[in-house]
């Protein structure tokens, strides 16, 4: 490519500016966005928890922590803090509330979690289902990462791209998909009915189905983050270990596992925090009997009891951030292991049928299981969009077309929703990836207190979505009075992108940071010694080495934006700014068809976008190297 001299002069100037001030600008920009769209709105709501009659008070927290309904057997602990003997019994009672029994699905045994008794309270139950959901997500997600990272097969890259597809689905679609797939007259029962197995899992074991649904959402997260890390594992180190006499298994345990562990733990943490805050899925599939803390936050908020909502949300956030902090301390202790970079040598999954060893049979069995768990709800969803009471029909798609062509100005039009979704997602990508990289760099280089900074950077994930919504509404939409004649008000597309970016950037951080820490510091130091600025070293040395992580983070940023519903509705007040998930919600009626048709469009558009983001990102990464 030949460049005009003027062009190259501008390039040089831009390059110099980026070299000199890039990081500072990034930090400042990140801080402004976070302050405006996160800290101020959430702070406004949280402040309500700490005040009674205008005075600073912890009374609301005391009330919650001594209420058996919330904390079960632990309620007495705060009531009389020094009765240690009693507390031991109370704590024992609290934990005795949990357990797993063996249930059977036909002749097939499966582990069924015990629905805890009153002893555990709302917080206890919430933590319990989050723990189980996390375990389920890791158990389901890790094999997928293993398969994607170590085997070569047709469609692997596409499959890898679309693994996070479930992530974007509105809860209402997932619930409907689960009913259609695993319900009484769902797909699974139709198939199993042929062999005389017929059982409604939802009826006999709703908690188990809720946990499956959480795995449906979060196992892809585990798989995605771990695959990213796996692909950065230095193949040379494995070879070195092998050449030093380690057998395959040993090399895996001593070389690969330590490099994967941070990614697995990070995704497990995200899953726990996510499912700790779960709200629509439990109510849709399990019902109020399986209510979580977030359900109470929602109720309090919709009764305009903001102080109660805030108090519960502060406690939720404290628990989530506490866990995050603990995890980050662990992560910090492990950094510097190995070096990122290098390519994984993949073996063909199916060289020929004669070569089916135990490992490959296991992979195929897993594939069958994952196919049922992930494909059944999606297939059911698409099937629902193509049928009515009497059989195959295209009428639901005809409805979408009709709404597009003849809909009134105040109605939500499908094509507009698609374009808005894509535009917001592109904007989110452009904002969240730099934000995430900046936070990852700053938090891995800052001195003391960096763990704290890093934990605080996770706030968007740890804060209740409902409280975030209330904060955006009462803060940004209504406006906050500033000193003087000014009012701070932010709405419209810019605010939507900012809110999406704030929700998304922690995923970039969690994908990039562990890998960044694994980059050999001597490489960076050499670059610096040769005259590269901090930014140049980051762009030219570190980022290319951790590109799979950046890409995985970018895919998440894109996915979060595509699937986001609550803050979009609040900030994009006009129907012309509705996104695809918003359209799905608006097309819900007595029949599922139109909403499912829009849901299928959402699936298709997102799937294509993911592949595009991945391919394009992979291409950029190649060029970068």
């Amino acid at each position, binding site marked *: 490519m030949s460049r005009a001299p003027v062009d190259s002069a501008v390039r040089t100037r831009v390059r110099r500016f980026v070299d000199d001030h890039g990081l500072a600008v990034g930090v400042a920009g990140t801080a402004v966005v976070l302050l405006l769209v996160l800290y101020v709105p959430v702070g406004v709501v949280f402040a309500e928890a700490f005040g009674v009659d205008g005075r600073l008070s912890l009374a609301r927290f005391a009330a919650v922590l001594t209420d058996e309904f919330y904390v079960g057997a632990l309620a007495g602990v705060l009531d009389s803090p020094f009765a240690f003997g009693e507390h031991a019994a109370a704590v024992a009672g609290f934990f005795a509330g949990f357990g797993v029994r063996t249930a059977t699905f036909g002749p097939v045994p499966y582990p069924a979690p015990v629905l805890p008794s009153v002893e555990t309270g709302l917080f206890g139950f919430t933590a319990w289902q989050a723990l189980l959901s996390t375990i389920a997500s890791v158990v389901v997600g890790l094999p997928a990462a293993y398969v994607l990272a170590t085997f070569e097969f047709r469609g692997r890259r596409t499959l890898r791209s679309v693994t996070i597809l479930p992530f974007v689905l509105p809860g209402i679609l997932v619930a409907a998909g689960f009913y259609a797939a695993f319900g009484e007259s769902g797909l699974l029962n139709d198939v199993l009915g042929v062999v005389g197995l017929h059982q409604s899992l939802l009826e006999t074991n709703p908690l188990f189905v809720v946990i499956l649904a959480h795995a449906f959402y979060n196992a892809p997260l585990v798989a995605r983050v771990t695959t990213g890390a796996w692909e950065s594992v230095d193949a040379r180190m494995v070879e070195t270990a092998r050449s030093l006499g380690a057998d395959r298994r040993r090399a895996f345990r001593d070389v690969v596992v330590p490099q994967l562990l941070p990614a697995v733990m990070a995704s497990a943490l995200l899953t726990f925090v996510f499912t700790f805050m779960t709200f629509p899925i439990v109510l849709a599939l399990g019902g109020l009997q399986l*209510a979580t803390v977030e359900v109470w936050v929602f109720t309090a908020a919709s*009764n*305009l009891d903001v102080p109660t909502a805030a108090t519960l949300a502060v406690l939720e956030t404290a628990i989530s951030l506490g866990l995050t902090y603990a995890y980050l301390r662990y992560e910090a202790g492990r950094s510097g292991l190995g070096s990122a970079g290098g390519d994984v040598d993949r073996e063909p999954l199916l060289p020929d049928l004669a070569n089916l060893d135990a490992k490959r049979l296991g992979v195929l069995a897993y594939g069958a299981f994952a196919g049922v768990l992930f494909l059944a709800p999606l297939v059911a969803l698409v099937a629902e969009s193509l049928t009515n009471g009497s059989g195959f029909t295209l009428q639901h798609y005809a409805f979408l077309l009709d709404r597009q062509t003849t809909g009134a100005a105040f109605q939500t039009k499908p094509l507009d929703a698609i374009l808005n979704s894509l535009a917001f997602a592109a904007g989110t990508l452009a904002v969240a990836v730099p934000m995430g990289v900046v936070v990852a760099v700053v938090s891995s280089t800052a001195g003391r207190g960096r763990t704290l900074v890093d934990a605080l950077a996770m706030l968007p994930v740890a804060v209740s979505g409902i409280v975030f919504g209330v904060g955006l509404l009462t803060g940004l939409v209504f406006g906050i009075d500033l000193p003087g004649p000014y009012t701070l008000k932010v709405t419209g597309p810019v605010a939507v992108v900012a809110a999406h970016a704030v929700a998304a950037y922690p995923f970039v951080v969690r994908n990039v940071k562990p890998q960044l820490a694994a980059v050999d510091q001597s490489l960076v130091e050499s670059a610096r010694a040769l005259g590269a600025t901090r930014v140049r070293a980051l762009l030219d040395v570190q980022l290319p080495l951790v590109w799979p992580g950046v890409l995985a983070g970018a895919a998440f940023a894109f996915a979060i934006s595509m699937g986001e519903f609550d803050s979009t509705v609040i900030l994009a007040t006009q129907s012309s700014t509705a996104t695809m998930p918003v359209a799905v919600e608006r097309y819900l009626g*007595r029949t599922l068809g139109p909403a499912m048709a829009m849901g299928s469009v959402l699936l298709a558009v997102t799937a294509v976008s993911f592949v595009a983001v991945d391919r394009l990102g992979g291409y950029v990464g190649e060029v970068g190297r």
Partner: protein
Amino acid sequence: MRRRRFLQATGSAGALGLAGCLVQDDGNESTDTTISETTTGTDATGTTSETTTTAEPDLEGTITVATYESFLNAPSESYDAPGAFVKQRFEEEYPDATVEFTVPSNGLNEYIQRRQQGASVDADVYVGLNVDDLVRIDENLGDRRLFQALDTDRMERASHVRDDLDFGDPKGRALAYDTGYISLVYDERDVDAPAMLDALTTEPYAGKLLAQTAQGTDTGQAFLLWTIAEKGPDGYLDYWEQLLENDVRILGSWWDSYSAYLDDQRPMVVSYSTDQVYANRDDQNMQKHQVAFPNDEGYANPEGMGLVQGTEETDLAYAFMDFVLRGEVQRTIALANVQFPAVADEHVDLPSEFSDYAHRPENPVSLGYDQLKGNLSGWIDEWSRLVASN
């Protein structure tokens, strides 16, 4: 009830006579509709021709109607949401007026919070008020007003609204425009209609019923209030304890539970008594769409409209609300929302595909403003704690 009696008293023979004739016009034949259009058209011309009598209403300008999403965006092949029709017809009648719809992102709560914080409420009329909304407004706003008292004299057709749909609001802020009855919908192939609410706690109904949470869903709350009306504030929790023992499942929204019902998860669901209208339209098996009224009751859930305090378009707003009560609009709303019209039967003409399949309970039950005030959130809280700890 006070407002209702007042209405009846002031509904003079002249107004009633005119109204009666208008209904015939609105509801039935197109020729008659023309007559009514001409009448109203003359009114509008009178306004614009600036003959200055102060009594002349100002019917010019833009009126912002705040409502809920499904008033504008109901997806159906046969009936679109009423919003488009309402806007188009109203603007035809009042050529100098424009209707703009707005959907507050958090429903009425958004306006309550706006009032609390002194932010502007940019709407003139609110369509979609429930009794509990009025209670919540008063509990949160105290003396500050969100809606103003309606001067029903300014609406010709206010007297058409059925007496049993009164909100019981001492401030007279809401006028019903449609109503639903919460009842049980069941699959007669699997279960019989329960004659009494009490039957639901007995063995034949063990593990049969799907309900919704009373925290934030209309149907769930209505069902809870029905049991409170039946068992009293002191007895309803015992009743629910028995229901829970009988394995009632309480899901998150009407939609959650209804899709579980459609999926054959359970053979009985708390839903609307108009269910068969949909079943008929969608050619569903009627056996799966039977409506039961235990104790011959159903809980009435009227939806009302109100005038936003401080609106500058009062005349237009009254004209709009009156317009909503016209026979043809009532008919459209009923068919599109699949809810009952608010006006008495003689003022609206519904096609047989609706009236044959929409069932009304013999004894509608509902708790009015006075009974809900100060109690509602406490009842729901007690109830939800009971359910969540079970």
